[in-house]
């Protein structure tokens, strides 16, 4: 029995017409912001060794890659992620270049078995940028400022929320509880799901201190503005976590100075992220999209996999998710991208002359359309 050729694999789709125009306009707008901040476009191999992604993203995420065998038996993957490959280039190809390195990209990635039933696509386009070399709050803020400018340019600033956290807050707590990797993942999952009830049950055999249990249970609820950090300090006292809280506070001061606090939230319950993040993590949500449309963070140890340890931070936006929201919400940006250009229709019995006129008009930059005689 053969499949009909009309069938399209699940998770794949077409873009055409108005939607394709909008998608192109979004991509151009976002990339123009990246280049405005001096981020250089980079294209990475679409197919790479699976081991690269397993190292880069962690096993669980890398497992979602579409994998196949190379001629020599080594495992290849359609890239599920851009950052792993960019980090490798930074540590190898560009090892000798002066820092900072600034890279941006607009490229499709491929993943199967989505986390959420709402993320059904197996191909999605990542619009992203990476800043490699500098660490600290100023570098964090540069990348956040780019995200803010992108959202403003798309007319989405008033409809978005960016949540901030540091993975070190959780790491400090997990270290204090001496959790094995499986238990650590389980605790991270429960906090991420904000499941205070199950988290309490999880912690009971692991810590005898009721105060500690209550404190960590609060992690699922701690979100808000600057006061969140003060509340967190009252219940979390280990050195590693408090250092992370200090760093978040420093970043928050910059956000205050830029007058951006309206759309930013500190959310200490946001802990389920790729293994490569080492400090700040952030997620971008937009009204009208049921899932997050962007995420980013600091990954200071990723390049160490390739022989050179250095600070790095970056973020990605999902082009298709942005396009969907803009199309669905009758946004000004979508209206602008759909403005019809004036078309000069050309029709003539003498086909030789017709094409002479067509090429002349094109040279003048006009938009033309040839109407063949048989159509009319």
């Amino acid at each position, binding site marked *: 029995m053969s499949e009909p050729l009309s069938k399209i694999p699940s998770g794949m789709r077409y873009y055409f017409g108005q939607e394709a125009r909008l998608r192109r306009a979004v991509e151009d707008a976002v990339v123009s912001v990246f280049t405005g901040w001096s981020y250089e476009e980079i294209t990475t191999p679409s197919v790479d060794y699976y081991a690269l992604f397993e190292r880069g993203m962690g096993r669980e995420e890398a497992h979602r890659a579409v994998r196949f065998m190379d001629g020599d038996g080594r495992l290849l993957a359609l890239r599920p992620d851009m950052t792993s490959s960019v980090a490798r280039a930074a540590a190898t190809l560009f090892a000798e270049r002066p820092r900072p390195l600034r890279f941006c990209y607009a490229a499709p990635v491929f993943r199967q078995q989505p986390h959420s039933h*709402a993320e059904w696509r197996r191909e999605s386009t990542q619009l992203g940028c990476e800043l490699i070399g500098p660490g600290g709050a100023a570098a964090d803020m540069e990348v956040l400022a780019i995200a803010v400018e992108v959202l403003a340019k798309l007319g989405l600033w008033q409809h*978005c929320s960016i949540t901030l956290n540091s993975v070190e807050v959780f790491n400090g707590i997990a270290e204090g509880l001496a959790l094995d990797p499986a238990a650590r993942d389980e605790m991270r999952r429960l906090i991420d799901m*904000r499941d205070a009830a199950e988290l309490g049950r999880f912690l009971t055999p692991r810590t005898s201190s009721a105060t500690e249990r209550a404190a960590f249970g609060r992690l*699922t609820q701690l979100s808000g503005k600057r006061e969140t950090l003060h509340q967190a300090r009252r219940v979390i006292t280990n050195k590693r976590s408090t250092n992370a809280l200090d760093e978040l506070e420093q970043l928050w001061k910059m956000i205050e100075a830029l007058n951006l606090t309206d759309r930013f939230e500190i959310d200490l319950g946001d802990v389920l992220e790729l293994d490569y993040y080492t400090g700040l993590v952030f997620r971008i*949500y937009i*009204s009208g*999209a*049921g*899932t997050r449309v962007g995420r980013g963070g600091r990954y200071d140890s990723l390049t160490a996999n390739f022989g050179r340890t250095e600070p790095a931070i970056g973020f990605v936006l999902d082009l298709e998710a942005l396009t969907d929201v803009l199309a669905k919400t009758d946004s000004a940006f979508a209206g602008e991208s759909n403005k019809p250009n004036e078309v000069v229709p050309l029709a003539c019995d003498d086909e030789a002359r017709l094409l002479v006129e067509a090429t002349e008009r094109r040279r003048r930059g006009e938009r033309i359309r040839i109407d063949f005689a048989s159509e009319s």
Partner: protein
Amino acid sequence: MLELTIAVAKGRMQDQALALMERAGIRVDEAALASRRLAVTDASERYRFVFVKPADVPVYVEHGIADCGVVGRDVLLESGADVLQPLDLGISRCRIAVATTHPEIPFSEFGMLRVATKYPNIAAKHFGALGIPVEIIELSGSVELAPVLGLADCIVDLVETGRTLAENGLSIVEEITESTGRLVVNRASYQLKAASVAPLIARLNEAVNEIALEKPSSD
């Protein structure tokens, strides 16, 4: 003004969920419920309730069509839905258990255990962790019949009182986990509509605590 859409699992969960909502100060008109409408608004017109099949609750919430939902933990475990679960509502309490007609035969005697269930993912995960090879037979109802008629060696099902099991000659040999009604929230709504979601969670939490205090401790 409408603030949140809440998907509620139809059936037994629905009545208990609405009773809990009422205790939290969210009233839904009886007449509206009695009608066959699938979406009703509460008295304050801030919340819209939609009533859908239990398995569909996480679907609506994951897609953000509903901001919140009320559904059993059994459904969430089975679907692996990517939703936030901030509150155990303590309603519709039951267990997910393994039951069989021949409790005297240990499962290690089976080279392949045939398991009938409405919860293929939960069952596969449970026996997978135990290293028992299984053939999962997915049924959509009256699961208790399967071992009686010889379709399966055991079942994985939701057990409330255990009466149906007993009447069909089955006994529980293992409890996998407990299930109660949960409040679930869409990830984006949790952030973008925090001003509405956080008070809802707080009010429901108060109501849940009140009920827990009223219940005799022997329960």
